[in-house]
């Protein structure tokens, strides 16, 4: 029986990564994710792992790239401005099929922005995590426990598909304390063999080359097409979402991460007032759970997207339902967290015509 303990989000995430077999960590301090690095610096040297504080986020992501290319299960973590710097490495990793996990404990932007919780990096994470034709797998946990559970999942999928993965958290999840159960892997988790890795051929095989450069256009197109087949398979097999009271809902709130929890409280309150509200919470932001949302649109009358941004997910919701229902938006940005009451008011307004 695993122990249930009270832990801060960032620290729980770090311990979950270790239990998932990640003992190589490359970081750089930035608020509000610094506890991830601090925790790793305490734990990893004791278990024969590597904690390395890089000279920059650029260096850290390239160390992650090197570790991943050598076949290690490795991770880096940062917050919004630092993730911008990591986009170089993310693109190269995507282009060279190198697995690895990037944590973004989001804060307000653009620029230096603020240090309060935010979800303003949705576009970056899901549309353009680096230059070129690429996607990364993006998970959005809404509780400390879910963040813990998704870490192992993210590593496993990243290894299986050789696609970098990201946990898109926010300052709220990173900084809050909640009771969690972390699955302990006795004697370390058994990791998949990586025959493609560059770690010395030992004169037993031809040399492995890890590379994203293809000077012949036809070669580059072929490699990208092959990669998009994997993206397609991910979309079919590995989208995840939570549906809460959506079956008979007239108004469906779409919210992810910490905002998903706030929206859930608002949905419950609306139900208590006799309003048929529901919550659709994407857990994978890429691939986006389009089909599930499309199914809900058959019965729902209106959608309300709630985010800690200016509404970056709204278009994905509209596209998923082919614009067949109205999609409204409510949110705050800059580090202000929407309250359940604000969301409830918006739900009641939308449901006004129905009551």
């Amino acid at each position, binding site marked *: 029986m695993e122990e249930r303990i009270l832990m801060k989000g960032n620290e729980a995430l770090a311990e979950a990564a270790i239990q998932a077999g990640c003992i190589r960590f490359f970081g750089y301090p930035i608020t509000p994710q610094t506890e991830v690095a601090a925790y790793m610096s305490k734990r990893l040297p004791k278990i024969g792992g*590597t904690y390395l504080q890089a*000279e920059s986020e650029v*260096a850290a992501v390239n160390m992650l*790239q*090197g570790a991943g290319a050598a076949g290690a299960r490795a991770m880096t973590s940062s917050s919004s401005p630092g993730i911008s710097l990591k986009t170089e490495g993310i693109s190269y990793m995507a282009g060279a099929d190198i697995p690895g996990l990037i944590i973004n404990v989001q804060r307000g932007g653009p620029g230096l922005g603020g240090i309060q919780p935010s979800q303003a990096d949705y576009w970056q994470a899901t549309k353009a995590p680096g230059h070129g034709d690429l996607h990364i797998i993006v998970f959005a946990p809404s509780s400390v426990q879910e963040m813990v559970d998704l870490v192992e999942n993210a590593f496993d999928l990243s290894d299986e598909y050789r696609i970098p993965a990201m946990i898109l958290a926010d300052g709220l999840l990173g900084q809050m304390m909640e009771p969690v159960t972390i699955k302990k892997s006795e004697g370390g988790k058994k990791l998949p063999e990586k025959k493609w890795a560059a770690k010395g051929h030992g004169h037993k095989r031809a040399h492995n080359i890890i590379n994203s450069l293809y000077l012949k256009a036809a070669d580059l197109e072929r490699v990208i097409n092959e990669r998009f087949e994997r993206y397609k398979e991910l979309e079919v097999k590995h989208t995840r979402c939570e549906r809460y009271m959506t079956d008979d809902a007239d108004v469906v709130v779409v919210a992810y991460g910490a905002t998903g929890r706030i929206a859930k409280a608002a949905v419950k309150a609306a139900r208590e007032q006799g309003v048929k509200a529901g919550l659709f919470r994407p857990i994978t932001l890429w691939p986006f759970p389009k089909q599930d949302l499309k199914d809900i649109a058959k019965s729902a009358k209106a959608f309300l997207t709630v985010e800690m941004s200016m509404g970056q997910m709204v278009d994905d919701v509209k596209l998923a339902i082919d614009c067949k229902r109205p999609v409204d938006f409510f949110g705050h940005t800059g580090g202000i967290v929407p309250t359940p009451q604000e969301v409830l008011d918006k739900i009641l307004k939308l449901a006004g015509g129905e009551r």
Partner: protein
Amino acid sequence: MAVVFKRPHALTNVPTHYCPGCTHGIIHRLVAEALDELDLEGRTVGIAPVGCAVMAYDYFNCDMIEAPHGRAPAIATGVKRSVPDSIVFTYQGDGDLAAIGTAETVHAAARGENITIIFVNNAIYGMTGGQMAPTTLPNQVTQTSPFGRDISQAGFPIKVCEMLSTLEGSSYIARVSVDCVRNVNIAKKAIKKAFEIQSQGRGFTLIEVLSTCPTNWGVSPKDALQWLRDNLIPYYPLGVYKDVTEVKKEELCDG
């Protein structure tokens, strides 16, 4: 008949893309010979740069990774920390190492990262067609310093060996040249020594190799070698800048 000269095992049997007269071929060979002689190829991971040597991953027979521009020391760090008994080298040009990758280079040295950097300095960006590099000499004409490098505008060249040898983390720092047979032999010894030091786990090693770029310097291969002697060597003196394996005089004294 006795074999007196053959392709090192650590070099693949493919034609390279380098320009006629370019000294990358010699330097590749020296690295490969060192790996052969020390029997390191099987556990070596090489990191290719962005620049003329970008396709070095096709030329070395060991496992290879192609790095983003300037990031080779960071990639090397990730590999070495994950596979501690591997031998890791980067092969980088002057723009890659001393401009865009300055931070990665300096901090890998400061950490005493147990890797070997082969730094090829020909004072110009070759792959992109001959632009001013951080090591371009004062008054040297390039595509982006058409009137000669004006130090009042473009500042001074970076002397990498001198800079890195001041860091406590560096172990073996040497500048060599491949302009003549004698210097090629010295370069070979330095490269081999760097790999030996790495395999003994003794820290950060960097060999700066003064090299030519006949194409972008706009001279014949033969004249390029002379230009190197006349211009690069005086500005970038050859020699060992740091060697932690050297027994110090006071250590030899009794008592």
